[in-house]
């Protein structure tokens, strides 16, 4: 009789444990859906060492705010949220109306192209009021802008956040020191943000025009915020006003309107984009994922890049050296073979060191 109970027990025990074991299956765990906004340093390759990226994450804190609208939340902003936005220290989606589920901040404006500067002013005021202590730099991007946030940290690591400066794709006309393209994304230091908000409080700055990037650029100049040079040490641009194909394969060097807008000489072909590119604009949802894949996932195993960047924290070329590198003549294109970093000088490793 006791044997029978023991046998029954064995069967019961075996069955119970057997049905629980699959839950320990590692395969089941890997495909679980991951909470999107909680991720910071995401996805690691087995041989990947993220130490430098992680250090910069805590040293160079970036708040990203994304300009969006109620009708674009699910068609565009969603894909930003699923990709690069996860890598910001803080991310906010700014819309005319609040949306608790997305989540999106309601700015209390109307929608439309003529509202862009109002939205921008309100957004920066909101960020200044609630998040000033939580970040060192404040990035504005559109919901069709792709941002390689790690590369933005690299650029900013050489500058102090208490310095009044802002970076982006620099345009030449209308403002003496130039201004930054809105669509390519621009980033303000904490001091620049303070001055922007102060400008509106003291009415030195006001809503001069709905053209957000130009109007902001004018305010920056009035408030003594410097328009920074975001190019890498070889003079290649990091912020871009168009998608990659247009820059890498487009006829920009011959396009007179683009030439007259660009603050720095326009380089074509491979020279148009830095290895450590920070942004592209007019990026479709599908291309947002493609760029995420290229930037953080797909790579050539074992490949030593041709161009090694200046390490984080070091100042890129001093301004006077930059002038030697490329002469910003209006209407003239710049070949890719100028200055001491001309291609062809060194085929394999080219290390660009800062001149001190």
């Amino acid at each position: 009789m006791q044997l029978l109970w023991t046998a029954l027990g064995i069967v019961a025990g075996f069955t119970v444990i057997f049905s629980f074991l699959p839950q320990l299956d590692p395969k089941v765990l890997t495909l679980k859906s991951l909470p999107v906004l909680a991720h910071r340093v995401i996805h690691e390759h087995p041989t990947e060492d993220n130490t430098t990226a992680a250090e910069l994450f805590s040293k160079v804190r970036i708040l990203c705010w994304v300009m969006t609208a109620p009708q674009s939340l699910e068609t565009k902003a969603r894909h930003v949220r699923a990709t690069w936005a996860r890598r910001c220290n803080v991310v906010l989606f700014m819309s005319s109306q609040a949306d608790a589920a997305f989540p999106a901040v309601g700015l209390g404006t109307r929608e439309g192209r003529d509202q862009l500067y109002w939205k921008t002013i309100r957004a920066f005021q909101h960020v200044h009021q609630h998040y000033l202590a939580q970040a060192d730099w404040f990035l504005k991007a559109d919901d069709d802008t792709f941002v390689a946030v790690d590369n933005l940290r690299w650029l900013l690591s050489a500058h102090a956040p208490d310095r009044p400066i802002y970076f982006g794709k620099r345009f030449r006309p209308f403002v003496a020191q130039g201004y930054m393209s809105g669509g390519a994304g621009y980033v303000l230091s904490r001091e620049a943000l303070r001055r922007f908000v102060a400008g509106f409080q003291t009415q030195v700055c006001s809503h001069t025009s709905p053209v957000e990037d130009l109007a902001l650029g004018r305010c920056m100049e009035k408030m003594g915020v410097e328009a920074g040079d975001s190019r890498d040490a070889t003079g290649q641009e990091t912020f871009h006003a168009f998608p990659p194909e247009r820059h890498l394969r487009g006829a920009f060097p011959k396009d007179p309107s683009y030439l007259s807008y660009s603050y720095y000489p326009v380089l074509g072909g491979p020279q148009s984009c830095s290895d450590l590119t920070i942004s592209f604009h007019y990026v479709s949802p599908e291309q947002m994922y493609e760029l995420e894949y290229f930037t953080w996932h797909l790579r050539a195993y074992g490949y030593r890049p041709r161009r090694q960047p200046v390490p984080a924290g070091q100042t890129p070329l001093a301004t006077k050296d930059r002038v030697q590198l490329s002469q910003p003549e209006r209407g003239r294109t710049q070949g890719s073979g100028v200055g001491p970093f001309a291609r062809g000088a060194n085929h394999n490793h080219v290390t660009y060191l800062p001149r001190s």
Partner: protein
Amino acid sequence: MISESTSFVKGVLLGGIFCVLVTFLGHIKTGYWTKVHHHEHHHIQAPNQEDVSNLSEVERVELSQSIRVYCIILVKPKDLGHWAAVKETWSKHCDKAEFYSSENVKVFDSITLNTDDMWAMMRKAYKLAYDHYKDEYNWFFLARPTTFAIIENLKYFLLKKDSSQPFYIGHTVKSGDLEYVDGEGGIVLSIESLRRLSKVFEDPDKCPEQGGMIWKLSEDKQLAVCLKYTGAFAENAEDSEGKDVFNTKSVGSLIKEAMSNHPQQVVEGCCSDMAITFNGLAPNHMHVMMYGVYRLRAYGHDFNDALVFLPPADSDND
């Protein structure tokens, strides 16, 4: 009553422990933890990091140089735009890349095959490649001009594979009884497979020049039939997560599919980090891929790779 429940409890404990033991042993025995599949398709996987992390720098360089890949790209005059893009982009990373053309084209150098039948072109190209290069390369990669390949990832994939074995690798498809490598994703042959193929080319019963009797087989199926006679079987290439590394579609197409099928995990579910090929790319897309693969990267992510590959000379888009 009490003695019966004690027996029952003892039984439950015994049963539970027994089950855990059996499952655990069973997993080890079938190689469960290394995810080896035992079913009809032949799957072949990339090496694990543990396999290669104990090498010195000298050993790494030697190892990198020991895997020599010869690239055959089959082209026709209508492919001129793609041909130019391939020449200017990924083919620079092959140890040697040559274009085998149906007919002579003034603009580019090529090896002229004087036929535009794809199977005949493939036969001739493989024969010429074997005759000229059998002592110089140990792996032979054949691609269409619409394909983009990352040769470094191919070499990493081939790292622990012995080229004196008959390997025939790519993106496999099953058609009835025949498992073959889809030409659209690129075809990899070891030197041993190529040697056997050269021999079987001379056997018109097993490997006829004219393709199938009643209806023509596509050239990639023909190749599989011939190779099968020699004992070389198609194997599907996957990374350590089971994702295909040879793709017959472009990144864009795969992303679009992923956006529909698993919108919460588009990039994570779409494509391998160690992908070797994509297909269906327009020429300008190849230039964007070249930038995306070899240049664009996120600062602060370093890799301790077992192999070392330097940028090629006379190039600036990589």
